[in-house]
């Protein structure tokens, strides 16, 4: 494929597939115009893959939507967006509609919402076909089946509704839909964000393969540099509406120059890289008696028609004082149910949970006393905080529920201080929407700390946070251990997070604990097949995966990357 590309390029200077020239987008609001994109130049050629990285709010999605003029009415588009040499800004509505999906299509983030919930998926895939190609119903059906086959979904699923599919399957439907009219450019906006590692790896593989086979142009947008590096030749880093760095993926990831790119690159740790290990490795488990202990815990749920689903089977684990343990597994592995059981939110069907050697009580009152000791930190701080409660109220709520005597104001200030929201008095009256994502997560942590717990159970504590904030929150968790001797059980699907801060790792698969040990043992020398699969699925921009999928390290693929940038420069 690359040879044909090189043959064609010098003789006939075809316009690039997508060319953005000084693109600006401003949102008109009551407080005046807010710039979201401030003069961006980018080029994607046929058969090329470009990754656009940036944190939330940097304007990357707005930029992507501007390619097909899908911006809301309040947005003002400036500069030139050339799709196949034709300016999207000057197109009539009719021409624009004809171009949409036929020339460029979009794989949206979160396919649950991007698919119409009340229409079967086959019909939704067929819709653009009927619209852009006048074909017979038989031909449409054949094409839908062909597309489903390409994204490795059984043809019989075409009558299924979106809610009947898993997250990965829905994303496959989105990809099939995007390929329907054989466009030359695909824009993928955070295509794997809500998926867990293994499914993410499958989707990325599928997307890379289809793009390579068809010589499609791909513009992939993500906050996750490792995802982009794994399937894009070139990377552009966007910050506050501008492209701050652009170049071959390996260079951007390995030797970032802009401070923001450095922060982004640092936020996605490479398992095995000592630089991203934030704790000093401990070789043995402490001799102290365990703080929290689960012995042979099983949880079964009654299912439809008399069947039962076993969510957790015979799981045993310990968390010692002053220890950070990571419970790792993909969604559906039972790690959440196990965590609920450890908190006493779910009664185990068999086995027992002990805290400081005592069995968890069953009465509501005694459980409340227990939960003071073991506090929960949830994944999404925006959802966990009541939008109408001030920071002070959010932190004081636990104190009030548990009727903790003493000076409430001092206790709240103390907790905020420990969560490094300083000076605490300035945050008392703030409402959640006035805070940044990282600050919100700190408020949630402060709310837990106010009760002076011995143990934090943190469910994906950094999954919804931006790259640069992630490091701060991890550092906070580590400092809390040093300052307060707090133990933490981190529940995550992210092996990088485990590598960052955990002392020990427990791997869960299909309701069972399949491997357990120190981080170094488990992640560097995995014993169980499933752990190896998990590790292999982590996108590693600098090593392993690059060789598996055709991209960055292959020298023949590098050349067309550089060519068109020169062409556009002319």
């Amino acid at each position, binding site marked *: 494929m690359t040879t044909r590309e090189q043959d064609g390029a010098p003789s006939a200077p075809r316009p690039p597939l997508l060319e953005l020239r000084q693109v600006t987008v401003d949102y008109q609001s009551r407080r005046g115009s807010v710039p979201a994109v401030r003069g961006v130049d980018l080029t994607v050629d046929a058969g090329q893959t470009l990754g656009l990285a940036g944190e939330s709010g940097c304007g990357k999605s707005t930029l992507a*939507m501007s390619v*097909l003029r*899908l911006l809301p009415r309040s947005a003002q588009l400036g500069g030139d967006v050339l799709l196949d040499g034709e300016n999207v800004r000057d197109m009539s509505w009719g021409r*624009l*509609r*004809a*171009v*949409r*999906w*036929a020339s460029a*299509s*979009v794989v*949206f983030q*979160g396919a649950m*919402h*991007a*698919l*119409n*919930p*009340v*229409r079967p998926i086959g019909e939704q895939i067929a*819709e*653009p076909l009927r*619209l*852009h190609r006048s074909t017979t119903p038989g031909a449409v059906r054949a094409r839908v089946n062909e597309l489903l086959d390409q994204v490795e979904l059984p043809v019989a699923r075409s009558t299924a*509704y979106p*809610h*009947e*599919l*898993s997250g990965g*399957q829905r994303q496959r439907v989105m990809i099939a*839909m995007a390929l329907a009219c054989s466009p030359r450019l695909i824009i993928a906006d955070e295509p794997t964000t809500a998926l867990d590692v293994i499914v993410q790896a499958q989707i990325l593989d599928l997307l890379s393969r289809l793009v390579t086979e068809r010589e499609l142009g791909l513009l992939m947008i993500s906050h996750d540099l490792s995802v982009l590096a794994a399937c894009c030749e070139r990377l552009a880093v966007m910050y506050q509406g501008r492209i701050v760095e652009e170049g071959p993926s390996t260079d951007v990831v390995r030797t970032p120059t802009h401070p923001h790119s450095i922060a982004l690159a640092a936020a996605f740790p490479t398992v095995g890289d000592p630089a991203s290990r934030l704790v000093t490795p401990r070789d043995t488990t402490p001799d102290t008696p365990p703080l929290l202990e689960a012995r042979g815990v099983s949880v079964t*749920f009654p*299912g*439809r*028609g008399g069947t039962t*689903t076993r*969510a957790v089977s015979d799981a045993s684990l310990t968390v010692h004082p002053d220890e950070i343990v990571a419970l790792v597994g993909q*969604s*559906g592995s*039972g790690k*959440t*149910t196990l*965590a*609920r059981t450890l908190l006493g*939110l*779910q009664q185990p069907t068999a086995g027992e949970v002990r805290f400081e050697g005592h069995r968890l009580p069953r009465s509501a009152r005694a459980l409340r006393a227990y939960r003071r000791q073991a506090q*929960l930190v*949830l*994944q*999404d701080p925006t*959802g*966990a905080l009541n939008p109408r409660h001030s920071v002070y109220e959010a932190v004081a709520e636990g104190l009030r529920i548990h009727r903790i005597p003493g000076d409430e104001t001092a206790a709240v200030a103390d907790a905020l201080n420990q969560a490094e929201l300083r000076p605490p008095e300035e945050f008392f009256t703030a409402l959640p929407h006035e805070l940044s994502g990282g600050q919100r997560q700190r408020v949630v942590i402060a709310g837990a700390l106010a009760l002076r717990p011995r143990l934090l159970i943190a*469910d*994906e504590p950094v999954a919804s946070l931006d790259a640069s904030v992630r490091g701060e929150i991890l550092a906070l968790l580590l400092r809390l251990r040093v300052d307060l001797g707090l133990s933490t059980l981190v*529940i995550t699907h992210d092996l990088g997070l485990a590598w960052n801060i955990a002392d020990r790792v427990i791997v869960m698969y299909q*309701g069972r604990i399949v491997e357990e040990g120190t981080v170094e043992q488990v992640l560097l020398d995995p014993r169980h097949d499933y752990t190896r699969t998990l590790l292999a699925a982590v996108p590693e921009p600098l090593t392993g995966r690059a060789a598996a999928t055709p991209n960055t390290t292959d020298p023949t693929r590098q050349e067309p990357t550089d060519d068109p940038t020169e062409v556009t420069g002319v």
Partner: protein
Amino acid sequence: MSDLLTPGDQLTEEAGEEQRPARGGLARYLASKLAGALTSLLLVVLLGFFLFRMLPGDPVQTMTAGREVTAEQIAELRERLGLSDPLWRQFLDYLGALLQGDFGDSFRYGRPVGDIILERLGPTILLAGTATVLAILLGLWLGVRSAWRHGSRFDRTATGVALTLWSVPTFWLGLIVLMVFAVGVGPLPGLFPTGGIRSIDPPPGLLPQILDVAHHLVLPCLTMVAVIFAQYQMVMRSSLLEEMGSDYLTTARAKGLREDLVRRRHAVPNALLPSVTLIFLHLGLVVSGAIMVETVFSWPGLGYLMVNALEYPDLPLMQGTFIVLAGTVIVMNVLADVVYRFLDPRVRAA
């Protein structure tokens, strides 16, 4: 929110693969809904019976008004109407007859209540049915248009008019309509009849008779539409507004669909879901809502019948109409559940 707080998430993950509506699920669903409906109906019977007996007014007094009667005659009349028995006994007798489909005999007309209700059902269905269909069509159309261009002048005007008409008392609006279009104001002659369902001497032939009824139908129907269309409009408007920001609409636009196709194929079907339930709930109330209009326009329907029965008080007739009106609401509720199940695949699977 985190899934830590939602129990059984593993279930849904695994079930996602082969989640299909279970066989016999519909039958069980229907059975549970019907059982609920029957319970409600029983409560209605109970409530209707005792409630109307607590109202002031004595039917025997009304029946014998203006005539010289002896105490013995009154006692005999009470005995004959079954009013002298203890209350619980009256209720059991009534319930027993009801189970055999017998609503009892009207005090006033001396005929079976069931027959009278059946006679009056036709005109009510004609009036309420026509008005509802028109109001739904008008309301949904206006609602969709207002929501799609929310904040526009069309939206502001349509919403304002709808809300005003909704707040106006039905009998007052009816009287105004009656005065303007039936009696005539100033140079405007009375265009429509003032009441009833047909002329005193109906024209011969089927077609002229139909036209005669239609002529009588215009004003009550118009009044009723004016009063009830707003609720459909507001429901549709708000549920469509909720869908407006959805991502799947962006997908549809990105596919190159025209705006009106985006609206018709994607936005409206989703927005209809909450509307349908509310429409069916309203449908049940339409029949009882017709009481005011029927009274103002002397429309010989169920509502008018009930008002007459209340004045008397004609206990069996009141109980009968009460059961029929409440029954409509209950039946419509069941229908709303069933229809919703067919419209929303997500409910179907649950």
